[in-house]
């Protein structure tokens, strides 16, 4: 029902909620499964957070320990290492992947042959669809120090090294290869969003630049690259909120020699749980998980704030 106010604007009076629900009952009915799913699988498990304040080894009743699990957490050197590794691995990976995705997108955009462009796109997207387990197996073989290791054999034949290097067993080399493998697997997939932006650039701008005498490099530098700027920032911000979720890519590439130097929070929790030779203290591992979630939440709030500043709207 609408009524006109004294200043001439029309004010629409909302019907009561129940009446509106009755009117749109079909939509509400369709929403029920989603509501139940979210409640059961996203909100109900949150009650488990309370175990962060207990000591609990599954058998028997949980024992209240207050903040003791968190005190223990900050005393453990492995926790600190894992926390910093999570941050460093994620941020470096994010910057490298995004940087490479931008470069490859620009190169793809410059390709004249449409067939070759499509073929190139397909080839660079494919690694994304390989599971991390398969990726780890493939790279273990490529990086093998034996005569089967392609990388070592190439370097030996080029005269750069005398004998095979065991890259995945070396703490420093492991990190380098971890980033390379991530770039190889994820960069192609990330180019999709940049390619979409590039496709949306008005061809008229390029024509205008040509009329102004701009060459190919100048058009790329002064037209294409600035057009990508907003997308790059958006991608960085959106991914920054997810940087605490690091497990599989690290886990499948680890071995005994590098495990402590390369643990991230989620692999740390895994080894605390399954490497103890006994039932783990689920209270402690929940505390680590809760800490990780809180850091993730803080990052998400920061990103949301940054997104509002940069894009004029939040990330959700």
């Amino acid at each position: 029902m609408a009524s006109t106010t004294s200043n001439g604007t029309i004010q629409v009076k909302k019907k009561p909620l129940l009446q509106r629900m009755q009117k749109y009952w079909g939509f509400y009915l369709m929403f029920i499964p989603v509501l139940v799913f979210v409640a059961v699988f996203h909100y109900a498990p949150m009650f488990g957070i309370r175990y962060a304040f207990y000591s609990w080894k599954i058998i028997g009743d949980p024992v209240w320990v207050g903040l003791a699990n968190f005190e223990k957490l900050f005393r453990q050197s492995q926790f600190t290492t894992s926390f910093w590794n999570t941050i460093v691995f994620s941020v470096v990976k994010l910057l490298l992947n995004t940087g490479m995705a931008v470069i490859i997108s620009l190169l793809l955009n410059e390709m004249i042959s449409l067939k070759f462009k499509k073929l190139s796109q397909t080839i660079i997207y494919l690694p994304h669809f390989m599971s991390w387990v398969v990726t780890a197996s493939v790279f273990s073989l490529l990086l093998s120090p034996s005569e089967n290791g392609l990388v070592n054999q190439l370097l030996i034949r080029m005269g750069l090294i005398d004998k095979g290097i065991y890259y995945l067993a070396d703490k420093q080399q492991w990190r380098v290869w971890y980033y390379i493998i991530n770039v190889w697997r994820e960069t192609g997939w990330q180019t999709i969003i940049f390619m979409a932006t590039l496709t949306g650039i008005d061809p008229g701008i390029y024509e205008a630049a040509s009329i102004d005498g701009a060459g190919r490099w100048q058009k790329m530098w002064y037209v294409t690259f600035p057009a990508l700027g907003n997308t790059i920032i958006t991608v960085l911000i959106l991914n920054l909120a997810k940087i605490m979720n690091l497990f599989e890519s690290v886990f499948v590439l680890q071995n005994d020699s590098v495990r402590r130097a390369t643990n991230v929070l989620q692999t740390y929790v895994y080894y605390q749980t399954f490497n103890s030779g006994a039932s783990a203290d689920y209270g402690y591992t929940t505390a680590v998980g809760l800490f990780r979630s809180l850091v993730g939440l803080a990052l998400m709030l920061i990103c949301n704030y940054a997104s509002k500043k940069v894009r004029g709207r939040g990330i959700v």
Partner: protein
Amino acid sequence: MKKLISLILVLALCAGLVTVTASADDKLKIVVMVDGTVLDQNNGRDAIEARWEELHPEYDLEFVQPDHSAYYDVMQQRISSGDWPDVLILSSTYYAEYAAAGVLWDMTEAWENSKTKNSGRFTGDNVFEGLKIDGKLYGFAPTRGNGCVTYVKKAWMDACGITEAPTTYEAYIDMLKAFRDKYGTYAVAAAGFVGTEAPYVNYLPEFYQDAYPFFVQQEDGTWVDGFTQDSMKAALQRIQDAVADGLIDKETLTNKTSDARNKFYDDKFGVFTYWAGTWATNLKTNLEANGKDGELVALKPLEGNPLYYDRVPPVWCITAKCAHPQEVFDGFIDTMLDGGDTQMLWEYGAEGTHWTREAGTVLAGTEKEATYEAGQFHMLENLEKAGTLYTKNHIDPMLALAGFEEGYDDPRSVEPEALAAAELFNNNSRLASIVPVTDVLSELNGELTTIKNEIIADIALGNMSVEEGYQKFADEGALDMSNEIVESLNALN
């Protein structure tokens, strides 16, 4: 609406009646929680349950069988909720912990008076001694845990002019050097320089010898951390030397078991320590499938070396909340190795579903097609995986701790090389010990194990000397953790 309410009421009444009928039945219900080591519902478990109830009409059997990979999660949730099953199957880690926490029924007396123990067919006294915790038995193992023996390629020995299998460490190393020199490759590979579960050292027994990286109880009953003992330092030196000499594949660090097996099949190396029994046949057939000579020589433990380790087998336990533990023991546990129809059921499954003696053809139209005459025992086609045959149910016939009664139609048919490897292992093995769980061990051992494994890997690869490794162990607080755990274990004495 009234009709709907009436229908609901009728259904509820029917359900109630069914419940009343079931509870009025004087059968003793046994709720059994089991992992995927018993054939599951998709593989004819109902037929197994029906046959078991036919053999034991005084009981009503109910299986609770989560997905194999999720078994311990679901089992722990069930225990923590207080809704305990009557019987459950446990690995050695949970067995020791649950026994200490009072979750398990003490079956020591029931076992001593059991038909199985006193049958004259039982051969697992040493296994059961190893299962005792503070002299008490809380679980029943129908089989050995099995372990690894060292296989040497006969063709490689012949090519190097080695006519006798080595019996000493020196002869063993000479053989590895001969292999390395002849084939230009390492001679031994494994999946990891140290295992991820007890008995940890079973993939490189000739090098570890009497060393053990976990906690061990000495003869006087006191506990020590095997990693801190001189025997471990000597073992690490042997491994480092062998890797440096090119005798052990340095990629042992990152090898998975499948990698090690594939390298063996590809003739990348000649000496492989792997599971006894059926795996002897698998190794042989896979080598032959790759066009290699499949003949393998299983080595006895080297002179002066301890016996091979037999894994602590998974055990069947009765929970402390079971209302009739003795009856459940008599009906369920003590009949598993009865030497007759129940043992047949646990070893091979249900007749007509998993095996038969009727004439017929299995895997018709495939390369593995086989035709059997009436009376000839044979396994049937897998219900879930067409084109393959069932091989067993829960109990591996080759590992069973008791044979069938004399005169019972034992269908056991084992390849000669598998039997030879299994016999060699059974005659030359000892049970890995069970370490009781303390709060300190539970808290510290995760990090301690990670440090130990890193030091083992770094020493093996020559990244540090043995002395440097042990210095690192002390400097990084691992020695303190180790001492704390040892103290907590000794406090149990």
